[in-house]
């Protein structure tokens, strides 16, 4: 901690783990309404250690994190901080004790600046007035200290990317002199490239002796980042092990008792792509340009790319949310002019949106009401008759709920997503666009989504699949289209590896990015030699509007992260 922050620096902790734990949990348990959700949990967190907390949704990770954050109080067991038994009366008390938590929902004010957010509630004062100069200077120093000098203290948080907002959250935690920072799925909303930013920051925090409790569904990150892994299952502590002593297959088996090999369902060989169901011909608007895509019946086409590369904008364009102003859209071979989601539904389209809670569900309504939403809105006369299929669809998706009258806000993320899927399936779409359908849901529910995608294609539906998780893109797609800076950067066949997709998405090794490049199999081996535009062709997009990534800072495909 530098002298510029508002409180006294603490003595720096010794580098790597091995010394006394800062935080020690013994026999912690928690019940909600008589349901035991955590039983007898032991956990040691040491300075400079990145400690992964893994387990399926419902395993108790979130509850454990909330206990450590001071949101919940444990019903049993003890929490020791620096060897002294404590209880955190509130999140704020935990924060002042040096335990900060970065939740998935950002605790930031989008209309306020970075500095105002970091020092919210403890603005430095001079003569009774807020000392803005000092607040900005301290924030700038803190950012520089964490290697984030590119982030300006006066930038409005709402104008930052998701990754940068997350970083502001972490900076805020550091400004509290946090010695333990818990992160709840910090990469859930980030594309792979942005994850790099987070990795960098985690490493810096580690060097400073901060202990990090890292909750994630992404195995790759756990193995890349974490020193120690603790597995929870059904509220019980199953295993704590150094990362070096376990491999991903065994970890997945420990978490779910399921083999990693069968993680993605295989394609049914009898499913052959049929006629073109959805065709975009040179579509564009202010966010995307000159995009041509064909999706055939029975085909899964993945749309990959970095956060902000225009994938969601394509989905929104197709569905008439922010329509295209150029080019043509054809559904089932006929040109359609979709100007609203309602027209999209009538044309036989379905869109599972990226943000389930804000755009996919009426949270205070029942499962059944949600599943009927589209029917009621678009074909009210037939809604009752067609809604009879909903229970069958829900049970085939293996929805777990006490009844169909349960309000969806009380369901887990995975079950909520199943309700969203049911809502669209009952409309019998010709084309379904899935925007990040597995974000923030547990392994079992992910598997259900993958199975569903296979079933849909087997019955002749065309699937456009937008995802930031490269493993699922590569495993599920018949073809992978990669977007970069609002344009298609290229197309890859099934079976391409993650590195190739990433290279296209980042524009690694390319000087010009204005051309739609079709990569043939022979060129895949050497991504540096992708056919680009003519030398001297100045048709590339303006670099100033690029997302959180400058292609020229990268000299090759991502490797061994």
């Amino acid at each position, binding site marked *: 901690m530098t002298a510029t922050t508002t409180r006294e620096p603490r003595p720096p902790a010794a580098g790597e783990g091995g010394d006394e734990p800062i935080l020690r949990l013994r026999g912690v348990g928690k019940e909600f309404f008589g349901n035991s959700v955590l039983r007898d949990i032991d956990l040691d967190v040491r300075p400079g250690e990145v400690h992964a907390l893994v387990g399926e949704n419902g395993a108790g990770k979130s509850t454990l994190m909330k206990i450590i954050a001071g949101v919940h109080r444990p019903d049993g067991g003890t929490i020791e901080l620096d060897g002294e038994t404590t209880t955190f009366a509130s*999140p*704020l008390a935990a*924060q002042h004790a040096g335990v900060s938590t970065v939740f998935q929902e950002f*605790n*930031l*004010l*989008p*209309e*306020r600046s970075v500095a*105002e957010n970091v020092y*919210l*509630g*403890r*603005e430095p004062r001079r003569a*009774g*007035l*807020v000392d803005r100069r000092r607040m900005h200077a301290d924030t700038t120093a803190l950012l520089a200290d964490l*290697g*984030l*000098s*590119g*982030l*300006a203290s*006066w*930038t*409005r948080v*709402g*104008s*930052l*990317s998701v990754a*940068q907002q997350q*970083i502001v959250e972490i900076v805020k935690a550091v400004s509290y002199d946090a010695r333990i920072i818990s992160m709840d799925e910090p990469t859930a909303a980030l594309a792979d*490239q942005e994850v*790099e*930013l987070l990795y*960098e920051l985690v490493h810096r925090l580690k060097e400073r002796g901060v202990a990090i409790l890292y909750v994630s569904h992404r195995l790759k990150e756990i193995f890349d980042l974490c020193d120690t892994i603790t597995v929870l299952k059904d509220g019980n502590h199953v295993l704590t092990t150094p990362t070096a002593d376990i491999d991903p297959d065994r970890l997945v088996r420990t978490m779910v008792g399921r083999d990693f090999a069968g993680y993605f369902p295989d394609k049914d060989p009898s499913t052959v792509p049929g006629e073109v169901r959805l065709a975009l011909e040179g579509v*564009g*608007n*202010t*966010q*995307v*340009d*000159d995009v041509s895509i064909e999706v055939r019946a029975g085909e899964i086409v993945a749309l990959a790319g970095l956060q902000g590369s*225009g994938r969601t904008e394509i989905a929104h364009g197709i569905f008439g949310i*922010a329509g295209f102003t*150029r080019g043509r859209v054809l559904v089932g071979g006929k040109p359609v002019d979709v100007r609203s989601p309602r027209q999209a539904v009538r044309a036989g389209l379905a869109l599972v949106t990226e943000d389930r809670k804000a755009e996919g569900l009426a949270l205070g309504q029942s499962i059944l009401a949600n599943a009927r939403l589209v029917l009621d809105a678009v074909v009210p006369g037939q809604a009752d008759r067609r809604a009879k299929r909903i229970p069958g669809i829900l049970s085939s998706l293996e929805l777990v709920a006490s009844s169909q009258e349960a309000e969806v806000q009380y369901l887990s993320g995975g079950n909520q997503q199943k309700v969203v899927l049911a809502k669209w399936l009952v409309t019998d779409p010709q084309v379904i666009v899935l925007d990040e359908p597995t974000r923030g849901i547990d392994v079992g529910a992910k598997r259900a989504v993958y199975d569903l995608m296979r079933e849909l294609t087997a019955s002749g539906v065309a699937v456009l699949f937008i995802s930031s998780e490269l493993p699922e893109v590569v495993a599920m797609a018949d073809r992978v289209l990669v977007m970069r*800076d*609002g344009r298609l950067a290229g197309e890859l066949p099934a079976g391409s590896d993650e590195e190739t997709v990433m290279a296209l998405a980042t524009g690694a090794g390319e000087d010009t990015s*204005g051309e739609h490049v079709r990569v043939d199999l022979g060129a895949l081996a050497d991504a540096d030699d992708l056919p680009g535009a003519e030398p001297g062709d100045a048709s590339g*997009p*303006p670099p*100033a*509007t*690029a*997302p*959180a*990534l*400058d292609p020229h*800072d*990268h000299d090759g495909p991502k490797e061994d992260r």
Partner: protein
Amino acid sequence: MSTAVATAAPTARRAPARRRRLGSTEIVYLALVGILVIAGVLVAVGGGNLFSTANTAYMLTQTSLLGFVAIGQTFAILCKSLDLSVGYVVALSSIVGATTMAGDPSRVWLGVLAAVGVAAAVGLVNGLVIAKLRVNAFIATLGVGLIIKGYLDTQFKGPAGEVPASFQMFGYTRVGPVPVSTIVMLLVAAVGVVLLTRTRPGYHMFAVGGNTDVARLSGIRTDRTLVLAHVLCSVCAGVAGLLIAARFGTGNALVYSYGLDLDSIAAVVLGGTLLMGGRGSIVGTVGGVLILAVLDTVFNVLDVDPFFKDVLRGVIIIAAVALYARRQIDPASSRARFRPTRTGGASA
């Protein structure tokens, strides 16, 4: 390498983000200038002078009355609350002030204190009902307003109390064409600006309005902040009541029918403050008040039918807020990657 990545985006976005942020207040004042020019020309065509001393004074007097109320309303709306009782508070405090003064010059300060004190008490009740009883602000302040209305209607059939001549100066004295009341209003505005942009309670109002949970998790006493905003709101309305008393020479219960409650909300929103809270400024509010006052003066000078006047005011308020809403809904347009042209936008 990743550090470099972090630097790329904010540099690219900083400029447009800052420009957009400054825009809100700027637009209000640009609109004000535009309206002044158009109005000046319209009045000149009719053979008058919008900027004559009499017209300017009228305009500014209108400004100060609504100004006090709207400045107060800004605090409430910034906290994602609102106050529908301000009209009744104005009426109540005009009566409390005038009856306390009872025509005695030595009791002027006592009357001022009483009026402001009663207003503050009403604000405290508003704030506590909203913060502690968790009653929606709309309903809470409507209810408190009705209670005051009932009291006023039963106790005061007409004017009540008497304001000494020395205090009537507050209503009528001018420095050049500028009424003293306007100067006082601008001073109150200045205090409000400092409060919002330079003090912790002000910062915390933005936080409470932006996201109450975030504010609470950051250790802000959100209830206290909300109550403070409502007390300030009512106190400002109380000062407006004193201005009414100074102008009329007595307190008057019927002032509540002036529509100051909704006008103040209109002025605040016209001034670029989000009705959803978390963003806004006093400077913008003063601009919004000026726009409404200019319109009012012009309509008066041009002798516009009062009903048609309301139609025009309604249209202008809706148009302005629709303009802001467009800017809100479409933040992406300012970050447009491709120009909406037919030719493909490659040559940006």
